[in-house]
């Protein structure tokens, strides 16, 4: 039916154009909005492909949760000072697009020469209607054959939660000093070690002061034993 193809082409056209817009936009907020448009269109495509449940999930999880999260972080990161990201590396853009085109060609060859061998399964339009629709069908398959992946995915989400909580948690002894943000740790990891002299010397008095009566472990370079912002600040103040 031509109408179906027409709708598909329209949806995918919008999706591709807005995806392209996403990577071209100067402002990352605009990029995010373009990505939302793409995702919504993709969700519509999912419905055409008999995946109503996934279409809803796509909207809720991607558009609803992940992108809003990204936007949220984007706002946190000082939106006034967003640097100009474009035009700095023309060579990279040329090569990037070049690689993309070649890979697209390679995938296109694969698509066009593909032969189908898979045996058709029972989940045609009628098959799904027989159990009450896509959601019911997915539910049946998911909870009969995919118990282990569900459990495992739950654990992945738990791991991610714990990790994110750790990364995002403010430091316990942190003082919100404005200057702290600009402190950059000196790179201590140059291969030749030639910049060793730049490291602020930590006198033992300094350490005692900081660590109280506890014995403090120190490393000369490239490790958290030395290069906390506090240490660096002290070094600079002296």
């Amino acid at each position, binding site marked *: 039916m031509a109408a179906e193809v027409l709708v598909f082409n329209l949806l995918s056209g919008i999706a591709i154009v807005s995806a392209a817009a996403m990577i071209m936009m100067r402002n990352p907020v605009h990029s995010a909005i373009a*990505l939302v448009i793409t995702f919504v269109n993709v969700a519509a495509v*999912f419905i055409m*492909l008999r995946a109503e449940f996934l279409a809803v999930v796509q909207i809720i999880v991607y558009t609803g*949760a992940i992108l809003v999260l990204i936007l949220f*972080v984007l706002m946190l990161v000082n939106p006034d000072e967003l640097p100009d990201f474009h035009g700095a590396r023309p060579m990279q853009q040329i090569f990037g697009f070049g690689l993309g085109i070649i890979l697209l060609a390679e995938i296109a060859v694969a698509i066009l020469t593909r032969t189908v061998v898979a045996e*058709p399964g029972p989940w045609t339009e009628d098959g799904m209607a027989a159990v009450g629709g896509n959601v019911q069908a997915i539910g049946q398959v998911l909870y009969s054959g995919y118990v282990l992946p569900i459990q495992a995915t739950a654990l*992945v989400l738990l791991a991610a939660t714990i990790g994110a909580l750790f*990364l995002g948690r403010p430091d316990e002894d942190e003082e919100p000093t404005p200057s702290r943000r600009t402190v950059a740790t000196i790179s201590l*990891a140059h291969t030749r070690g030639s910049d060793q002299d730049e490291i602020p010397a930590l006198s033992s008095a300094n350490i005692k002061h900081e660590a109280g009566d506890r014995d403090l472990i120190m490393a000369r370079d490239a490790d958290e034993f030395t290069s906390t912002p506090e240490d660096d600040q002290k070094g600079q103040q002296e």
Partner: protein
Amino acid sequence: MNELMPEHFMFLSAALFIIGMVGVLTRRNVLVIFMCVELMLTAVNISFIGFAWEFSQLTGQIFALFIIAIAAAEAVIGLGIIMALTRQRDTVDIDEVRELRQ
């Protein structure tokens, strides 16, 4: 082409995947790169769902469901790392993050 063919969604998927890849290759804002990775995963989902549609199976749809879940987990971790980064240094430009090299 009068009917919806598998090639249709395959090309859509490939196009979105490539666009995502090119975005990762060319952008410098770490958040935009991150969005591009999400776009690539969505492209993969289209492939999976399309193949499932073609074969009248549900395997692909369920795989896609799990990819979405994992992508959510990945997003949480990624944003956590980016938060930690901005806490240390007020930047989201990956070109400024290059102390470790050679």
